[in-house]
């Protein structure tokens, strides 16, 4: 309560100060032309902070927009929010940096953080004066380059296997028995024998394809720097084997994640690999849906790639702005705030332990997802940074070549490794 009061008082003070400076600037601009103009625009800007996010579905007046506005008020400024779709946002951010008109805060898809950081347009969290200690290291890692954090996650999602309870019951498969690749393939065999389709996943030739393949790739112990390793081969052969046996439909080669989800909702498939964002849709399905974590080759949970947005702060000409920016970021990432974000966005798992505990109290059924996020790994982690998109393109190409039969898995991976090495060296 007291905290709330002080922050509000600070807000009022800040606002008054802004107004005072504003009027002063207006008064002076008449007498001394050039310098007066400078202060005038600076003071005007300090009252308004710009905020970009990739959520055009949350329009003005929505809960999300209101929350952003409240965080601005608490820091004593007005936030001007603009929403772009995800791809457009990265391009807009690059253009604005080129023109020197970056916004104060951007919410950005996590693999794009290292791309923007590479351009030198982002401040580190240190420079911003924001402490990142509370955030889970594996989630934070996607935004870390050369030891410096360029952003913080506002929530994380990841992949798991959804299953259709009715089909598993009919085939006599206990989902709890799925602990490694062998038991999963065994389950698919049983389901197939019982006359249902086994599993569907997205092998499309875009980033989504790599995103879906990574849990198996990492689950075999493979490393993105070495695409032609025996572990990587094992992962490709697992998928290829499912296709050859007919456990997975041939159309997975061209499927996007949305398509696979639609296929699963028809009730014909026992399993689908999909993400946290489908939790609501799964609850509304015509059949009972459960989830298991994606197994690693030899048992245990496989590291799935993390999805979700980071808050980043582009470099500003006027460093005095960082103070307020940091306050806004703080406000968006309190434990309560993170849980609120989690529910606004169909179950985004909070990136701090405190936040996760608070979320589990509110919705205990999300336990498996919190575990999956705990095991998850950032795609740009391990200092891959901007090499990741290049490697990823080769990875999805190799998976497509192998699954379609254009090449053997071994050939496909060798070619991918050659191309990736050539492109990243």
């Amino acid at each position, binding site marked *: 309560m007291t905290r709330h009061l002080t922050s509000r008082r600070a807000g009022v003070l800040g606002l008054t100060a802004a107004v005072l400076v504003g009027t002063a600037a207006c008064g002076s601009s008449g007498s001394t032309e050039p310098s007066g103009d400078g202060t005038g625009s600076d003071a005007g800007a300090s009252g308004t902070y710009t905020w970009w996010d990739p959520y055009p579905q949350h329009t003005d007046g929505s809960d999300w927009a209101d929350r952003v506005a409240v965080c601005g008020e608490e820091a004593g400024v007005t936030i001007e929010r603009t929403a772009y779709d995800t791809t457009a946002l990265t391009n807009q951010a*690059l253009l604005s*940096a080129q023109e020197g008109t970056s916004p104060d805060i951007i919410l950005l898809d996590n693999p794009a953080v290292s*791309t923007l950081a590479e351009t030198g347009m982002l401040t580190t969290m240190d420079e911003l004066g924001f402490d990142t200690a509370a955030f889970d290291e594996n989630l934070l890692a996607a935004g870390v380059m050369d030891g410096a954090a360029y952003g913080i996650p506002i929530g994380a999602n990841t992949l798991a296997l959804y299953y259709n309870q009715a089909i598993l019951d009919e085939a006599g498969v206990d989902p709890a028995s799925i602990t490694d690749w062998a038991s999963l393939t065994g389950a698919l065999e049983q389901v197939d024998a019982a006359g249902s389709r086994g599993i569907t996943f997205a092998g499309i030739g*875009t980033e989504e394809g790599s995103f879906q393949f990574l849990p198996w790739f990492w689950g075999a112990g493979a490393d993105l720097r070495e695409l032609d390793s025996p572990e990587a081969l094992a992962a490709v052969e697992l998928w290829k084997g499912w296709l050859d046996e007919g456990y997975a439909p041939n*159309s997975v080669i061209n499927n996007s994640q949305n398509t696979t989800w639609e296929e699963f909702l028809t009730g014909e498939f026992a399993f689908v690999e999909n993400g946290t964002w489908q939790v609501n849709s799964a609850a509304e399905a015509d059949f009972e849906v459960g989830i298991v974590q994606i197994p690693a080759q030899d048992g245990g949970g496989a590291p799935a790639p993390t999805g979700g947005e980071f808050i980043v702060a582009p470099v500003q000409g006027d460093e005095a702005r960082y103070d307020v920016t940091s306050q806004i970021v703080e406000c968006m990432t309190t434990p309560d705030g993170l849980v609120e974000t989690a529910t606004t966005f169909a179950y985004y798992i909070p990136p701090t332990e405190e936040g996760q505990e608070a979320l589990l109290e509110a919705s205990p059924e999300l336990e498996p997802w919190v575990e999956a996020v705990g095991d998850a790994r950032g795609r740009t982690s391990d200092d891959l940074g901007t090499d990741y998109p290049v490697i990823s393109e080769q990875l999805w190409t190799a998976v497509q*070549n192998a699954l*379609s*039969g254009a090449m053997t898995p071994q050939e496909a991976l060798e070619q991918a490794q050659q191309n990736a090495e050539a492109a990243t060296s």
Partner: protein
Amino acid sequence: MTSSPAAVGTASSAAGVAARRSAAPAGPRPPRRSTPSTQWAAVAFAAPLIVYLVVFYAYPLFRNIELSVHDYTIRAFVQGDAEFIGFEKYADVFASSAFPTALVNTALFTFVSIAFQYTIGLALAVFFQKSFRLSGVLRGMFLVPWLLPLIVSASTWSWMLNSDSGIINSVLQSFGIGQINWLTSPDFALTSVIIANIWLGIPFNLVILYSGLQNIPGELYEAASLDGATGWQQFWRITFPLLRPVSAITILLGLIYTLKVVDVIWIMTTGGPGNVSTTLAVWSYREAFGTGQPAFSPAAAVGNLLILIALVFGFVYLYLQRRQEES
């Protein structure tokens, strides 16, 4: 990107100045000054066109070439300090393992599409030349592929061609033909996108060739039938030769349109599986926008190659046209 609005600004103010100057001496004036003022007026009239050409044609072309001879990494793009590397990106493109595939695919995609589009379009145009009941309606229906947004027609094709749940496979299966992986098999993916593209291109050929047919005088056919020419002979001796100029322009435009097709292929296969259905245009698009990391320089290099190829066909057309005029 910043310089395009700036260019508009300066150019229009230049036009404004030009207009003002030519308007000022409108009253009584010494005759010797009339020559420069007419020149100014001429410039003022030409200015909008020149501005338009510079802003929308010359500048993008220049920018594309500039992108391809510099090393535009993401960092360089923002900082504006891309290193000049000459034709290194072009060398990379030629050396890439994707290049031969993309080149062969582009040739197959373009020539097979054009051959079928033209043949079917011409056949339909001749068919509709004899008006009969409902011929207008039927002809209108053939325009549907042209009117539909590409995202709709390409998505529909990709649903129909789906390996497991597509209507085409289920029809084939009822005739005892096993599952064909139209979009996901390396043997069929290119064929599938070509089929869809042929369907999309028929209306264009139909419309242009049909209007060409209207210009062939009817007496020729009357005279021919009096001489006892069969329908087949009439087509090869009258229709086809007289339609040659229209055919040439139809095929040239078709070539240029087809060379740069991205959307159909991207929506149906994203150039996959692997690179099986990747054409030069799709490759360029993928480099620039299809991965997490835009690589503008190689994308621009591939794009410039496409421009060159289109230019070659343009010159071939001009050459043929000149030869025809001479004869």
